[in-house]
């Protein structure tokens, strides 16, 4: 992919003061700039502040707090500024929290970036409210102020100090694009998602959207359509004929917008429920009895779904009978009489030959040849003879619309009479009723079976202390209800779209009758076309990036995965499901360790295609991994990602100790390969004043 390469930039030093659990100043961490010993480790018990360091780097770079998917900060009393320092303030006093990053290229310090948040106790207040700058609940009597300072070189090579936060943000974003931050400030919890195709798909889609900057195209699509609609509303309002349609269009557009948003949210919600359901099913499948019951239950659900479809079709047939055949039955007598009249008229030769092909046929088939009036004549094929003339007349009649109309009409009457035979209708109706009874019975039976399987699932004893059967039943009900509601909304959307199009046509017609506003109408066409064109363009970019991501992820996975020889390639489907396949193109099942490596390969792949040439800080890289898979992943860290400044924020348990299921202490694996530069340990300490704080020290295992 032809994206500009960037110079390699890395963090040389981090200085933290009064942030989170780090009270006071002097909390400094130097990171490796070596390509050989490229890994720095930060070890800490749970809750010691590892994730805080990760999030503080993000805050320093962008001046915003990193959003975590499942966190709700608004209720927390712990925020950016150290809580003890904040709570100790007296009226008129202030405290400043700051983070400084020294960012280097291969030659020198390129940026020295400091971001500060100052809190000042202004007045007494018992009220506590959420303060977005501090990202926590604080007394409303405290005022907050942020500032930033960037020391860098200007174009002439002189050092300058920049304090304008907009300029700072632009400069930093050029080097460390915020939309790519997930790929250099990575949350290890996301790696767990790669064990399951559907739970990783959102993450992959989100990644592709972010790296391509597709939000800008979404905005272009929306704004060009909005502008076109506004012009339409404007000219529609001026025209008396078009005004009602214009008002309707405004209303329908707003309704469409709301409904689309609702559908999008519901779809996300449904996917989450589906992921939960899959997770539970997966756990149940691991149990032998559970696996058999789930398989039987799935069959019963399929049978129920087929019976429901048949029942729906049968109901349609009954409707057809009620609304088409029954009304026809009511005019059956009239039609039968009409047919008799036709037959009699034809037999009596009272339909003039010019419109009756039957009459001509009668003449031509008579022997000896006779006219309808009884006159005989010879079968002579010479030009001008009655035989030839009659044949010509017959040919003309066949072409004649009127005679064809009559025969078609008769044909239709015969068919209606045939299908509306009382006996036949009664037979059909009885048959439909029987099918209905049978299908309803089948659905009830399948429902009972599904319920029974659900009950059996609840009775199985699982290794984990969870009632998986009940959970599955709950999620299944939840999923069915949500998908049903989603379908209703999607049908509403189709209906609403049709209404919009119908009204839009009327609006266009009303405006074109006026013969005015040509320029405006052209602008509307341009705006609508840009919106549609952008949609196609966006699709194309998504496809392109999906295929590039797939290629790059495949490359890294096949280089580093445990038992990599059993795999052939990685596939990312149109729905962004990620699958590892073997040489026969069959989807392979991945161990926890392999799935984790797949996630890392994806991160490495995205970094490659975006030419991200900077640090990779991973918070909890071994999240939820134990036993042999942990050893395998540690090997990956120690062998791959050469030259990349890697910082791993790990717990002491995983880094320093093994586990009974075969995991070695990670420290042994990483040190063996000689890639670790320094290890730090975050300790809990008390200051002279008795305030709890943290101390970051080099780890010494001697």
């Amino acid at each position, binding site marked *: 992919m032809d994206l500009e390469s960037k110079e390699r930039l890395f963090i040389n030093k981090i200085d933290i003061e009064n942030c989170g659990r780090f009270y006071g100043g002097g909390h400094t961490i130097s990171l490796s700039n070596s390509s050989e010993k490229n890994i720095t480790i930060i070890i800490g018990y749970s809750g010691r502040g590892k994730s805080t360091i990760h999030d503080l780097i993000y805050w320093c770079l962008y001046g915003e707090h990193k959003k975590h998917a499942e966190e709700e900060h608004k209720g927390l009393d712990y925020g950016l500024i150290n809580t003890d320092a904040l709570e100790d303030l007296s009226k008129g006093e202030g405290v400043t929290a700051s983070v400084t990053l020294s960012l280097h290229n291969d030659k020198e310090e390129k940026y020295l970036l400091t971001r500060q948040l100052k809190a000042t106790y202004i007045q007494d207040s018992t009220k506590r409210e959420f303060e977005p700058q501090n990202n926590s609940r604080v007394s409303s009597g405290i005022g907050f102020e942020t500032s930033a300072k960037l020391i860098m070189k200007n174009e002439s090579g002189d050092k300058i100090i920049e304090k304008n936060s907009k300029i700072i943000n632009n400069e930093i974003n050029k080097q460390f694009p915020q939309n790519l931050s997930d790929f250099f400030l990575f949350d290890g919890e996301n790696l767990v998602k790669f064990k399951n195709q559907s739970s990783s798909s959102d993450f992959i889609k989100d990644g592709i959207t972010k790296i391509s900057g597709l939000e800008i195209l979404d905005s272009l699509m929306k704004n060009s359509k909005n502008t076109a609609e506004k012009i339409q509303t404007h000219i529609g309002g001026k025209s008396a004929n078009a005004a009602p349609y214009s008002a309707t269009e405004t209303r329908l557009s707003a309704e469409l917008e709301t409904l689309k948003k609702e559908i999008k949210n519901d779809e996300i919600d449904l996917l989450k429920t589906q992921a939960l359901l899959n997770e539970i099913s997966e756990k149940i499948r691991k149990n032998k009895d559970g696996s058999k019951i789930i398989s039987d239950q799935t069959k019963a659900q399929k049978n129920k779904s087929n019976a429901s479809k048949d029942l729906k079709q049968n109901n349609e047939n009954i409707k057809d009978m009620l609304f088409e055949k029954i009304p026809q039955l009511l005019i059956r007598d009239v039609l039968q009489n009409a047919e008799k009249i036709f037959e009699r008229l034809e037999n009596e030769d009272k339909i003039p030959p010019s419109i009756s092909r039957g009459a001509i046929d009668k003449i031509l088939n008579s022997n000896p040849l006779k006219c309808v009036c009884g006159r005989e004549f010879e079968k002579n094929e010479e030009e001008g003879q009655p035989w030839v003339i009659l044949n010509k007349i017959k040919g003309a009649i066949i072409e004649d619309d009127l005679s064809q109309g009559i025969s078609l009409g008769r044909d239709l009457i015969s068919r209606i009479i045939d299908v509306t035979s009382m006996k036949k209708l009664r037979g059909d109706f009885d048959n439909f009723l029987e099918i209905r009874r049978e299908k309803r019975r089948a659905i009830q039976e399948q429902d009972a079976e599904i319920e029974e399987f659900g009950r059996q699932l609840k009775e199985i004893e699982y290794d984990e202390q969870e009632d998986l059967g009940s959970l599955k039943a709950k999620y299944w009900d939840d999923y069915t209800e949500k998908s049903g509601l989603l379908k209703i909304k999607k049908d509403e959307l189709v209906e609403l779209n049709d209404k919009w199009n119908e009204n839009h046509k009327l609006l266009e017609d009303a405006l074109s009758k006026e013969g005015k506003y040509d320029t405006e109408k052209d602008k509307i*066409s*341009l705006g609508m076309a*840009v919106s549609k*064109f952008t949609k196609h*363009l966006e699709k194309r*970019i998504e496809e392109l990036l999906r295929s590039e991501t797939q290629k790059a992820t495949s490359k890294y996975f096949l280089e580093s995965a445990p038992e990599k020889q059993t795999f052939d390639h990685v596939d990312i489907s149109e729905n962004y499901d990620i699958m590892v396949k073997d040489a026969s193109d069959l989807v392979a099942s991945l161990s926890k360790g392999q799935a984790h490596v797949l996630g890392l390969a994806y991160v490495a792949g995205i970094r490659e295609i975006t030419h991200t040439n900077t640090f990779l800080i991973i918070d909890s890289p071994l999240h939820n991994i134990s036993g042999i898979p942990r050893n395998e992943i540690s090997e990956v860290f120690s062998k791959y990602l050469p030259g990349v400044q890697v910082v791993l924020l790990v717990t002491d348990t995983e880094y320093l100790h093994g586990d009974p299921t075969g995991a070695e202490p990670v420290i042994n694996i990483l040190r063996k390969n000689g890639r670790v530069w320094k290890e730090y340990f975050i300790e809990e300490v008390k200051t002279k004043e008795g305030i709890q704080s943290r101390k970051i020290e080099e780890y010494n295992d001697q």
Partner: protein
Amino acid sequence: MVILNPIILKTLKTFLDENSEIPKEMQTLVEKLLKIEEISGNSKEGIDKLYDQILDQFVSKTDLVEWSKNYGS
């Protein structure tokens, strides 16, 4: 300010090269509108006016307007 990924502009060009029925002025029009998006970033104030002005500049491109009428409908 939003950073415009070069891949968008590159694909825009390729896409138009592959679809010769789309008038070439579409590239300039989309590029101009993307520039507005890039500069305005999250501030949406007056964006309609800017869009309106750009569309106004392209009304005289008869081929583009005619194509748009068929394509957008």
